[in-house]
């Protein structure tokens, strides 16, 4: 993408005013999307983005400048702009880069940008037809495919010169059911760090569309969820959003370094029920949150965050590693070259436990079964979180009873982690886009079925 000598000149320029570390992140991305609504392909787009960001550290201060101009002159000008904001002793640049090639754990077979439009249109139509076939109550279906192919180059003043190619493919299907003057929707959106082989190897688009449509129909016939405090069984897959929101964000170094986390200073302490082990793994082949190297060029890792209820690791990026005096964990990520990177989650999940799923429900008494979760958010300082239940059922006397809509779960991360009294044996993951200070990035959430002894359930 750019020459080593160009990167060397830009990095040398960036350190001229006394910065002690400089980094160059160059990215060339091609992507596109096709969308269907009302049974017709309505939009098709293609995009190409290209640019670079230069970061300079001076102790714990960090400056970030980004530009579309990746010519030698453009990069040197951006580097100078970054250097101008650093107020240190004059430095002398003498950087020599050595090329390192990261091993590729995610080989791609079918590049999305090479797939014919007709095949993309067919996948969308398959979703539309499958969803509508579920019930005459399905009145609208939106189907989308998005994909991008990003070529990144990372160089820094410690001599690193490396690169990575990241290819992502994702589908989304949303179905709306209508009846009795009401409407409800259901959606699914699986994706992977894969090309279009995703639709041969892992994802059956019609099956996904049926899941979305069934959810919409079920919720159309559901009653409003009663409000109150009750035991809650949260199923696997996207149910892992509870851990992502309620705990994961508070274990990112960007929150911990400044004490903006309820888990700051708690390494080695019990923060969760002893049956909880949680992992953040950036190495899983083809997974949505995986990377060969993070966005600072550090190889990704499999990191145990919580072991048998005890906090053992934070997710640490380079700058916050300096602040906390801790090693990097390959967790530094950014949406694209327009964002400075920071510590973020990758594929984050509660590890499988030993409880039997049917026993978890049978011994629950009266409570809520959250079969499918929507999204949520958290205040990392206080740990207060909220998230929506996309498909929920009341549990009555240990049996799954009628479906309920509009349920919201709220609580504090530190409290809910201690209240987990069952962890099932079958773990799976689901895909999301996680938004934070370094932009919107692909992350996996996951867990087996878990039970929380009591939670505040919002409803009507």
């Amino acid at each position: 993408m750019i020459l080593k000598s160009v990167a060397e000149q830009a990095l040398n320029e960036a350190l001229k005013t006394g910065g002690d570390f400089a980094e160059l992140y160059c990215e060339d991305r091609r992507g596109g999307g096709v969308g269907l609504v009302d049974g017709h392909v309505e939009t098709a787009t293609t995009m190409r983005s290209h640019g670079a960001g230069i970061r300079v550290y001076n102790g714990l201060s960090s400056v970030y400048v980004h530009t579309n101009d990746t010519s030698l002159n453009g990069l040197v000008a951006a580097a100078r702009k970054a250097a101008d904001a650093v107020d240190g002793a004059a430095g002398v640049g003498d950087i020599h880069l050595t090329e390192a090639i990261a091993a590729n754990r995610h080989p791609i077979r079918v590049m999305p940008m090479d797939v014919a439009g007709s095949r993309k249109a067919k996948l969308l139509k398959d979703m539309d037809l499958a969803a509508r076939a579920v019930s005459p109550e399905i009145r609208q279906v939106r189907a989308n495919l998005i994909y991008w192919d990003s070529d990144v180059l990372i160089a820094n003043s410690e001599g690193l010169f490396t690169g990575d190619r990241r290819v992502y493919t994702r589908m989304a299907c949303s179905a709306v059911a209508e009846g009795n003057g009401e409407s409800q929707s259901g959606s699914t959106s699986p994706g992977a760090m894969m090309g279009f082989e995703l639709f041969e190897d892992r994802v059956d688009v019609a099956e996904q569309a049926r899941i979305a449509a069934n959810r919409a129909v079920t919720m159309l016939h559901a009653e409003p969820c009663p409000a109150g405090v009750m035991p809650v069984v949260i199923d696997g897959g996207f149910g892992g959003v509870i851990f992502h929101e309620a705990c994961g964000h508070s274990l990112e170094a960007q929150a911990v370094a400044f004490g903006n986390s309820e888990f700051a200073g708690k390494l080695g302490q019990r923060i969760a029920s002893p049956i909880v082990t949680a992992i953040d793994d950036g190495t899983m082949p083809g997974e949505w949150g995986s990377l060969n190297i993070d966005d600072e060029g550090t190889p990704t890792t499999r990191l145990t965050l919580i072991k048998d209820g005890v906090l053992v690791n934070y997710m640490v990026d380079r700058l916050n590693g300096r602040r906390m005096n801790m090693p990097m964990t390959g967790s530094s990520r950014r949406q694209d070259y327009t964002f400075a990177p920071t510590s973020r989650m990758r594929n984050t999940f509660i590890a499988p436990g030993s409880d039997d799923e049917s026993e978890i429900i049978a011994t629950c008494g009266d409570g809520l079964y959250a079969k499918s979760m929507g999204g949520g958010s958290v205040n990392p300082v206080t740990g207060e979180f909220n998230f929506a239940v996309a498909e929920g059922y009341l549990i009555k006397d240990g049996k799954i009873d009628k479906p309920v809509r509009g349920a919201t779960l709220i609580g504090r991360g530190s409290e809910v982690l201690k209240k987990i009294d069952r962890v099932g044996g079958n773990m799976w993951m689901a895909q999301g886009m996680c938004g934070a200070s370094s932009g919107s990035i692909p992350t996996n959430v996951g867990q087996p079925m878990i039970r929380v002894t009591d939670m505040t359930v919002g409803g009507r």
Partner: protein
Amino acid sequence: MDRNEFVKRLFDRISEREKTDSQVRYAGSEVCFEAGSSFEVQVKDGEIIGYNVSDGTGLGFRMLTGSGRVGYASTQILDEAAVDQLLDGALENAALVESEDEQFIYAGDDKYPELKLYNPALEEITAAQKIEMARKLEKLTLEQDPRIAQVEDCAIFSSSDFRAIHNGSGLDVTNRVNLLGGYVAAVARDGEKVNTGFEMFFTMKPEEIDLEKVARRAAKEALDGLDAVQADSGAYRVLLRNDVAATLLATFSGVFSADSAQKGLSRLKGREGETVAAECVTLMDNPHLETSAASTPFDGEGVATQPKAVIEGGRLNTLLHNLKTARKQGVKTTANASRPGYAASVGVAPTNFYFKPTDVGFEEMLEKLGDGLLVTDLQGMHAGANPITGDFSLAAKGFAVHGGKLGEAVAQITVAGNFYELLKDVEAVGGDLEFRSPGASCFGSPCLLVKRLSVAGK
């Protein structure tokens, strides 16, 4: 190459290709060019912990082909190769589109409103001055009360953006906007108790910046909630504070889009002329407010914009339209074609969207409420709110109100309702209009007194 040269090359190529390819149409071609610069500085304990400077350009191309389909392509590189990439990409994408809706490339209006959306004085504020402002905002916040233990996040930002739309049918319009803003998140601690308070501002007029007020509000929010208790579950009369009402409006603004309605994704479909809200509710879309970066003389298709009441006295006057949705419904566009970025396709969105204020003060609104709940914070909008059905169930904070006076703070509750029902349940509208979330659309509201919402607590 620079923008003008690139656009000229592109249109030259189009007229060449037009002669040999019946799909390529000079009059059907349009570029949307954007150039922007932005700055943000974050401080912590007076030290700079984040400093971001950006310059970016991008160009979006769309073509209405000979067979009446629209295809899009965009690029951030303006080189010779990009000329063909855009042209081929747009043609290829257009060939995929099956929608029968009639599409338009607009020839332009005779007159566009003249709006002052760019203040050169803002460009003269140096990075050093902005850093000082950020430090001052942090310091002022910490000084509000000994219990303000730390500032979680404190930043000053500025942006300056240029947009031009040019097409082969004669449209050639440009707009420039800039703004300066900041935000602070205060953390209050008292023993084991902890709470946060967030406040932000944005303006085009630097002389109006009042950092002390921003600091005071953030600190107050954090301190007020320290002793919060969980309210009892039940149905409450509720006063939604101005910023909370604005956030709810933002979440459900899509229901006013004719595009959503035509696709069956809004319950306001076909309801024009009917009463959809309480009589005291008037909902405005005003693209001409000279205090907002969402203001614009022309919409995403180049149509001249105008202010309008979407709901007036409870009656739905119109939905928001672009040229396509207006043609489909046989009405005139409301000039609400959106293009949230140069790469985005044309959709429908409001500009500055707000409930029209009255002259009733906040204290008087509390008195009107009498006994009930003041909601000062709602969280989880992207998950706990269903923009199609209007249902919401959201984590909330606020205060109990007894006899028109603020009582104990409440937290760890959810507030649930339905946006369509809420519009009808508004009993009174306050006078304290305030705007939130500067962006492609900007949302505002005064405080709203609502007859009934469900609260889940203890």
